[in-house]
């Protein structure tokens, strides 16, 4: 057992120190990683929910085109430049900016949110396994597990997903490399399998007509609110808010040779999110608008479809668990990686038993991004705006502060304001980001300024 433990300990990667040049990864690796990560089991649910929310076909296409573009630009111009200049994970950069106290709070929040997300992926995959054992899929109003069978499936899948997450980044990338092109094909094949059933002709001459009348026809399912263009645009943009604007993907992009590698996220946004959401919308229309990802995949593409749903959950839950492990490692310095990932996997597995994480997935995705967004604003301001205003950077590190109260005030204050903003949940993060940015600069502007413009650890 101790030999196994020490072998696992050697899986340590450069989490706490800047990435060295010999560890930088090629663009192809990033394309594969992002493509694999963003064609997930949750795409089966998200695209289907758009149909249940009564989106019109035109609003869907335009909203997805522009929303995903904004997401790619956010990765490329906000996250990637900071990641490449610092070569640090966000967690260690936050420690320099806000002190270990804020880092502890941030990492706990981040790890919990990652675990819930991975739990949702496991829950979606569980609907595929549940189909085999005739386990009833939870209803859209369910919060708690509806059967022992559901709990057992969630536990089994959680254990399998955690085991792979322990193997680390290189292995995950390899696994995504094999799975992602095929999962992408599963979505396309599933949609193609359903289109004849919906009445679409082989020459596609009535495809748009069928789309408008039988798929994205503006009719909402019972209990679901009506979505329009702006809901779709903002959803596509904030779907990975914590990763781009919130800067979590510094953990991945710090391995990039250039900041322009941020554009590789387009492999995740267009073939990934956009196409997969359209395909899953078609698939849910094919089963009479029932929210049952397992049945959707089975009816559309048979057993291979079910396997696709399972593997889509697996390939996405794994990097999410890996990130949760990274977040927790920063606050448990004496724990080996495998033990931390195991702990995160156990929490995730318990969360996966509660169907609310997948029946309320869209709202959860919005809240997840919103909670972490203010820290992204603080880091952006610290990295780029402080040198411009000749305000000392990394004050917490230099003065050995345990906790920067300014960062905490900005974080909590922004979330409180966002909570009371009289606009839809999906739109709140944008004014929130501006509020966080301005309030942090204002709070720091009263401090002692340093002598030379651009006197910064990471250049001007």
């Amino acid at each position, binding site marked *: 057992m101790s030999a196994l433990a020490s072998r696992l300990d050697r899986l340590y990667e450069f989490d706490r120190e800047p990435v060295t040049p010999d560890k930088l990864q090629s663009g192809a690796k990033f394309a594969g990683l992002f493509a694999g990560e963003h064609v997930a089991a949750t795409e089966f649910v998200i695209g289907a929910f758009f149909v249940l929310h009564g989106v019109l076909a035109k609003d869907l296409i335009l909203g997805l085109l522009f929303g995903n573009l904004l997401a790619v630009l956010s990765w490329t111009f906000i996250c990637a430049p900071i990641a490449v200049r610092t070569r640090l994970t966000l967690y260690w950069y936050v420690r320099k900016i806000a002190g270990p106290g804020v880092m502890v709070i941030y990492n706990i929040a981040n790890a919990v949110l990652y675990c819930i997300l991975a739990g949702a992926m496991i829950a979606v995959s569980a609907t595929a396994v549940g189909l085999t054992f005739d386990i009833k899929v939870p209803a859209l109003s369910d919060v708690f597990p509806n059967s022992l069978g559901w709990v057992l499936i969630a536990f089994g899948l959680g254990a399998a997903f955690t085991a792979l997450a322990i193997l680390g980044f290189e292995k995950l990338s390899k696994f995504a490399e094999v799975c992602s092109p095929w999962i992408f094909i599963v979505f396309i094949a599933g949609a*193609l399998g359903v289109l004849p059933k919906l009445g679409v002709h082989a020459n596609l001459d009535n495809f748009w007509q069928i789309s408008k009348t039988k798929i994205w026809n503006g009719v909402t399912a019972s209990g679901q609110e009506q979505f329009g263009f702006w809901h779709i645009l903002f959803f596509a943009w904030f779907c990975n808010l914590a990763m781009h604007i919130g800067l979590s993907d510094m953990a991945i992009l710090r391995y990039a040779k250039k900041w322009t590698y941020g554009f590789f996220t387009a492999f995740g946004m267009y073939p990934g999110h956009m196409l997969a959401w359209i395909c899953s919308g078609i698939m849910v229309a094919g089963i009479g608008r029932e929210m049952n990802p397992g049945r959707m995949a089975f009816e559309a593409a048979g057993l291979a479809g079910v396997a*696709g749903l399972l593997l889509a959950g697996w390939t996405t839950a794994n990097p999410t668990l890996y990130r949760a492990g990274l977040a927790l490692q920063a606050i448990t310095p004496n724990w080996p990686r495998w033990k931390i990932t195991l702990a995160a996997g156990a929490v995730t597995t318990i969360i996966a038993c509660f169907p609310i994480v997948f029946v309320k997935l869209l709202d959860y995705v919005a809240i997840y991004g919103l909670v972490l967004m203010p820290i992204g604003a603080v880091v952006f301001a610290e990295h780029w705006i402080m040198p411009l205003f000749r305000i000392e950077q990394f004050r917490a590190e230099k003065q050995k502060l345990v906790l920067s109260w300014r960062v905490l005030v900005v974080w909590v204050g922004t979330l409180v304001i966002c909570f009371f903003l009289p606009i839809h949940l999906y739109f709140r993060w944008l004014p929130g980001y501006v509020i966080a940015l301005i309030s942090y600069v204002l709070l720091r502007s009263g401090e002692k300024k340093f002598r030379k413009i651009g006197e910064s650890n990471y250049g001007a």
Partner: protein
Amino acid sequence: MERKIYGLLSLVSLALCLIFSIAHFLGAIQASRFKLGFLLASIAWFVFATLWVTRPKNSTKT
């Protein structure tokens, strides 16, 4: 050489996955045949793609 063959075979398998679904969409094959063909092509993809990515790039084996 082995790696190239596995790479080629895996791409053919992936193409077959797509061809079965297109054939069904065009009305050339029934849904049951599409699903069976798609499953078999998928299994072939995982076998060949795994062999492909696990083989060393500069293998001297022929």
